[in-house]
C-alpha cells in the first residue's frame, strides 16, 4: 500500500484497464473515470492525490479541463497528462497551467512509476512540513498568551512603582502621610493581595 489515490481518466477501455492493473499491482489505490464528465463527478467527492488523464477525450471536457477542475478543488492534486506525440505542444501548455508532468503514448510504465514516486515524496515532505508548522503554531500561540499576560502585568506593576515613587518623593507631605498614601494605593490596585 503506497498511501496514494490515483484517478485514471481515459476513454479507451483497454488503456484504462491496463493502467488500473499496473497501478494496483504497484500498490496504489486506483479510481476510474471513463471520460471527463465522470472525472468531474468523482473529483469533488473523493480524496485524490494524483489524476492521470488522457489529453484528448470525446466531449467538451478533455484533459486540460480535467486539470482545471482538479486544481480548482485543490492545488495539491497533481495531474499527469497522457498525450499522443502530436499533441506535445498542448501538454507543455498544460504544464504552464499547473500540470505536474506529461507522458507520451505508448505509456512507458517505468517512467510513470518514477514520476509517481517523485510526487509521493514531495507530498510526504509537504505533509511533514504541515504537521511541523501546525505543532509550531500550537506552541507559539500558547507561549504568546503567557507572554502577553506577563507583558501587561509587568507594565501595570511598573506604572504602580512609578506612582509609589512619586508619592514617596513628594516633600509637600510629611513622611507618615506618604506611607499611608502608598498603602492606600496598594490596597486599591491589588485587591487580591489586600482583601477587604
Amino acid at each position, binding site marked *: 500500500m503506497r498511501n496514494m489515490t490515483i484517478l485514471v481518466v481515459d476513454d479507451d477501455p483497454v488503456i484504462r484497464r491496463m493502467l488500473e492493473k499496473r497501478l494496483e499491482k504497484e500498490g496504489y489505490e486506483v479510481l476510474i473515470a471513463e471520460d471527463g464528465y465522470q472525472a468531474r463527478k468523482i473529483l469533488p467527492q473523493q480524496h485524490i492525490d494524483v489524476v492521470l488523464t488522457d489529453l484528448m477525450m470525446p466531449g467538451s471536457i478533455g484533459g486540460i479541463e480535467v486539470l482545471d477542475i482538479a486544481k480548482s478543488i485543490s492545488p495539491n492534486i497533481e495531474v499527469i497528462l497522457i498525450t499522443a506525440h502530436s499533441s506535445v505542444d498542448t501538454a507543455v501548455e498544460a504544464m*504552464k*497551467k499547473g500540470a505536474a508532468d506529461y507522458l507520451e503514448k505508448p505509456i512507458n510504465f517505468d517512467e510513470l512509476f518514477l514520476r509517481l514516486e517523485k510526487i509521493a515524496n514531495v507530498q510526504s515532505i509537504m505533509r511533514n*512540513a*504541515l504537521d511541523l508548522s501546525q505543532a509550531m503554531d500550537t506552541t507559539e500561540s500558547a507561549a504568546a498568551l503567557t507572554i502577553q499576560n506577563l507583558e501587561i502585568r509587568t507594565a501595570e506593576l511598573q506604572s504602580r512603582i512609578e506612582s509609589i515613587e512619586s508619592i514617596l518623593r513628594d516633600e509637600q507631605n510629611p513622611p507618615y502621610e506618604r506611607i499611608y498614601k502608598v498603602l492606600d494605593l496598594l490596597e486599591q490596585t491589588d485587591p487580591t493581595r489586600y482583601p477587604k
Partner: protein
Amino acid sequence: MLKISPDELKLVAQYIHDISGIYLDQSKSYLFETRLGSIASEHGCNTYKELYQKAKTEPSKIIERKIIDAISTNETLFFRDKGPFELLQHKLLPELIDARTPGSPALKTNLKIWSAASSTGQELYSIAIIIKEMLPNISKYSIKLLGTDISDGAVAQASRGKYNKFEMERGLPGDKLQRYFTMFGDSWTIKDEIRAMVQFRKLNLMLPFAGLGKFDIIFCRNVAIYFTLPDRQKLFNKIADSLADDGYLIIGSTESLTGICPRFIPKRHLRSIFYQKK
C-alpha cells in the same frame, strides 16, 4: 559538508554580527555549516576562514550578500498568525483613519505603514489586501506601504510577488487566493492592483534609518529575536523615533519589550497586544 573549526566559528559569528546584527549561537556549528558550506565551495574556499577573508575583501560584496541571504530566516506566511491582522483591520486602521482624516474633503488621508523585516513580502501583501478590502474609495487616501529586509534575495522575491505552492500552503483563505493571485504553472503571482500598493527595499536594521520619515504603524515581528539584548534596545529605540506619537507598533506574538524599551507601553485588544509610545 565542509567542517567549521572553533576558531572559525568565533570569527565567522563575529563577522555575521557585524554585517547583519544577527547573532548566531556558536554552539550550533551545524547552522554555520549547512548555511555557509555551499557558498564556500561555490567560491573555491577550502576553509571558512578563507571564505571570511574573501567576503570581507571582495569589493563587489557579492559573497557578503550571499552570506546574508543564507543566514537570514525567511520563514513567513500570508496572514501569519491571525491576531495582528485582525487587530489592524478592526482597531488600528479605523482609529488611525479617524485621527488622520483631514477636515476638508479635498485633502487625502495619509497613512504610512512599515514592515521592518518584510522577508519575502507576505506580511506587507497581507496588509495591502486588508487595506484594499477595507477602503473601497481608496483614491481618497495616500497610503504608503514600505517593506524592508536585509536580504537582497528576499527583497527581490518580495518585489516579484511570486510564490511557489509551499509558500502559499498555509494562511491564505481560498477566496483571497483566487481574487488577488494569478496562477502560472506551480507558482502564484500577486496581482498588479496589490503589487502597486507596496514598495520593497533593502535595509539593515542595525544602521541608521535615514530618510524613512515617521510611520503610523510599524510591524517588526520575529526579527529582534535574532539580535543580542543591546542590539534589541538600540533597534526599538530607533523604531520609537520612527513612529508617530499616536502610532502603533506590532511585534511578534511571542516577543516582549519588557526591559528592552521603556518608551513603549503594551496595550491589549482582544487576543492581541500592540505598543504605543508613552
